[in-house]
């Protein structure tokens, strides 16, 4: 776990005002928002920017972070591997919720391991010191699984790190690992709810829940759009021109027979209904035809191309270019 310089992430000085932090955040959010950014690492940068803003825009979090940064600087290598010392945030109170800061559990959705290990649990300790009854707050995290795991189900381990109060009443760094069963048929954007795996409750009330947002890792063969899957399907010129019945692999394993219609053009989209993600209605598998030319690497192949050229001498693929 690397120590992160949140001031550097936002491009502001250590003494930057709240207004400067807010302006820097908004400027960078517009530049790196994954929906509009042209930067290659926009998603990763946006997560760091959100995280930095969540700390530096909050007076108490920022003061705690500054203390920690100073301690790390004195200890030597702030850029290397870093473990926050237990009890590093003693003396700070962290307040949650609107109206002042509007820090809700929603904030946690895109926190990195570094952030949640420093701040998530300290807020829990802060809450525990207060004398009230309330159900624990819900936690949010994203889990990236493969397409195969989404379709067939899987079991995954998730590590949650935080500072908790030990048996002696002192804070200590703890890692909690959850073994989670991912049910078959989950699709991107769906949430898996783990009851009572969020923040502990206060005053005898139950713990909150943990929500895992399902994300599917990019796949070498399939592209995901909602519940639909897309795959490029290479066909030969003769299959495209004359039509053919060909074997096609499907994401759940095995193959199906697909009828390629005669006179199929490059880019033609064929649909295998219900072969995408499960749901109501289920998604489809779309096949985008890509005509692959056989190489002219033998006398027989060259002769066949010459015969084809002679037989289709009236065909001009550049007619629309006026030549």
């Amino acid at each position, binding site marked *: 776990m690397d120590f992160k310089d949140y001031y550097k992430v936002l491009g502001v000085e250590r003494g930057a005002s709240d207004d400067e932090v807010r302006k820097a*955040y*908004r400027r960078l*959010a517009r530049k790196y928002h994954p*929906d*509009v950014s*042209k930067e*290659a690492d926009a998603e990763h940068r946006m997560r760091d920017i*959100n995280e930095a*803003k969540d700390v530096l825009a909050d007076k108490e979090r920022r003061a705690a972070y500054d203390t920690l940064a100073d301690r790390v600087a004195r200890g030597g290598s702030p850029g290397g591997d870093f473990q926050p010392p237990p009890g590093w945030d003693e003396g700070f109170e962290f307040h*949650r*919720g*609107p109206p002042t*800061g*509007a*820090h*809700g*559990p*929603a*904030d946690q*959705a895109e926190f990195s391991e570094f952030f949640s290990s420093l701040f998530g649990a300290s807020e829990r300790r802060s809450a525990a010191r207060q004398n009230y009854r309330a*159900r624990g*707050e*819900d936690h*949010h995290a994203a889990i990236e699984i493969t397409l195969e795991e989404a379709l067939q189900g899987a079991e995954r381990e998730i590590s949650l790190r935080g500072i908790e109060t030990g048996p002696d009443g002192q804070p200590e760094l*703890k*890692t*909690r*690992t*959850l*073994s*989670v*069963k*991912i*049910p078959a048929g*989950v699709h991107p*954007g*769906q*949430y*898996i*709810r*783990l*009851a009572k*795996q969020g923040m502990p409750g206060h005053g005898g009330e139950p713990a*909150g*829940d943990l*929500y895992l*947002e399902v994300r599917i890792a990019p796949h070498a063969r399939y*592209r995901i*759009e*909602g519940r639909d899957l*897309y795959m490029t399907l290479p066909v030969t010129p003769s299959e495209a021109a004359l039509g053919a019945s060909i074997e096609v692999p499907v994401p759940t394993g095995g193959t199906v027979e697909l009828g390629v219609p005669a006179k199929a053009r490059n*880019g033609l*989209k064929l649909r295998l209904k219900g072969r995408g993600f499960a749901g*109501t209605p289920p998604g489809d598998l*779309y096949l*985008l035809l890509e005509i692959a030319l056989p190489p002219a690497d033998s006398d027989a192949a060259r002769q066949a191309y010459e015969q084809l050229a002679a037989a289709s001498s009236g065909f001009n693929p550049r007619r629309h270019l006026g030549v």
Partner: protein
Amino acid sequence: MAHVSVTTTTTLSATHPLAARELAHACGAGIEWVVQLVEVGIVSVPSRALPPDDWHFQSADLQQALAARRLERDFGVDLDAAALILDLQHELRRAKALLRSHGIEPGR
């Protein structure tokens, strides 16, 4: 290191939806905030004639509600503006998906 096996998981769906209070709690808000989300159209319910305690929500609603919460906090927008931003965001993603479905990679 504590190790916990979680065998009971629920996938949010039509058969396992979130109640309005659960949606509110997941976003660190109160049920009146969910009522506002419904009023501005950020999440929808089959019938607003029903009391909020009878409303149910799925994954897409939770995703919308969390996104609205962040827009409120990070950009100081009200929920009407958040609704417009989220609509535009969906339209942008839909248009990009349409391009990709025709084999065109949207310009980066």
